[in-house]
């Protein structure tokens, strides 16, 4: 086949980038295997005890104040990545499970396989974000602590048919892609940037597949970060 000949020949195996940048990318991929370290998010964990030998300060205030955010700086960005990927993994996984239980009528096999496959990748992404948090001494994000989560779950609860599931998947994966694309410009650590760089296109591929199954024409938004969630969407 002509294009196969191209793929196997000069166009098939592009040269790997030499030197540090390539290693930096692999460091990001290492997050999937739990081997990456992220120094930048090694700021003090919430509730951490004062170092020994620290002079006694004034007594703690007894009045009730708002809890400090659990994540700040780079860690908040990683937590956002974990939360949005976790939300997508959980909701799409629930959609797949519900489809298997007949909750949405007769669901075509192609839709079920899409939901299951996309959910698994989002779960893997959430785990990778969490490994970066853990490597920096920060608590992993549990669940999907986002202000947007209740509305997404309500939409899943209201779904009646496969087309509703695909529409939800298209919108949710679009939010993930936009959010993680925006993170590439906010993160500072090479390993975290590499993870975002590898995750955002995959989330976009989920959206493209959902769009195709829905019969929507392919589009590329002029602003690929439109609809992105910020760290202010975190509820932890």
């Amino acid at each position: 086949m002509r294009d196969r000949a191209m793929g196997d020949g000069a166009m098939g195996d592009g040269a790997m980038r030499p030197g540090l940048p390539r290693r930096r990318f692999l460091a990001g991929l290492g997050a999937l295997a739990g081997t990456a370290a992220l120094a930048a998010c090694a700021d003090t964990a919430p509730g951490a005890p004062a170092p020994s030998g620290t002079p006694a300060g004034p007594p703690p205030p007894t009045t009730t104040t708002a809890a400090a955010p659990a994540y700040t700086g780079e860690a908040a960005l990683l937590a956002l990545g974990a939360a949005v990927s976790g939300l997508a993994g959980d909701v799409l996984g629930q959609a797949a499970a519900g489809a298997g239980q007949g909750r949405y009528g007769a669901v075509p096999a192609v839709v079920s396989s899409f939901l299951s496959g996309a959910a698994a990748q989002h779960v893997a992404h959430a785990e990778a974000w969490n490994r970066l948090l853990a490597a920096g001494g920060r608590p992993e994000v549990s669940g999907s602590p986002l202000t947007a989560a209740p509305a997404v779950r309500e939409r899943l609860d209201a779904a009646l048919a496969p087309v509703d599931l695909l529409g939800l998947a298209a919108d949710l994966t679009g939010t993930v892609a936009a959010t993680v694309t925006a993170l590439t410009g906010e993160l500072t650590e090479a390993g975290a940037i590499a993870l975002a760089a590898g995750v955002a296109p995959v989330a976009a591929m989920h959206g493209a597949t959902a769009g195709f199954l829905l019969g929507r024409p392919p589009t590329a938004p002029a602003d690929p970060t439109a609809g992105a969630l910020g760290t202010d969407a975190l509820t932890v």
Partner: protein
Amino acid sequence: MTAPAPADVPILQTASSLVVLTADTYTSLRALPYGGGATALAPVRDLLVAAVDALDRARADLADATRAAGGRVQTEPDPRYAPVVEQALPTVRGPGDVVGLALTLEDVLAQTLVADVVDLSAPGVRRTVAGHAAASAQRKALLLTLQTLLSTGRAELAAVPPDLLALPPAAGTVGFPDVLFPTEKASPATEGAVR
């Protein structure tokens, strides 16, 4: 905002050269009857139209970033792949060939842009390039899906909207084969640099 550094220039030029080549190739494919003409499959035709628009934006954004980094804008196609495309175009005989050629180029482009996100120094440019990488990945997903459907010998499966009950289950996942987008095929940063 942090301005792009001079070290970013070859990266941006190489990305531009691949965008130029891919856009030019899509334009050529659109001129074919089974690319953008009367006998073209609807999803193939729609993809080519959307791709040209998106790549025009990518070309403009990369040019702006190149200038901001103090470099000359690359307007020529990638020198490694241009001869290959030139050789392949006359051999395109049907929608499967259109999809195959587009997929080969789109994969190299997307992988290069993803690698660029890691290598670029300016956060704003990283974000912009990441957006174009995501757009390229979307096209790759659709092309992978179409390639799978066309390989069944039932071109009617590649319809808008598709008959969901007729689609093979694999069509739901073939568009996203990797948990993280690969970069093994990324072009070296100097490949398309202005000399």
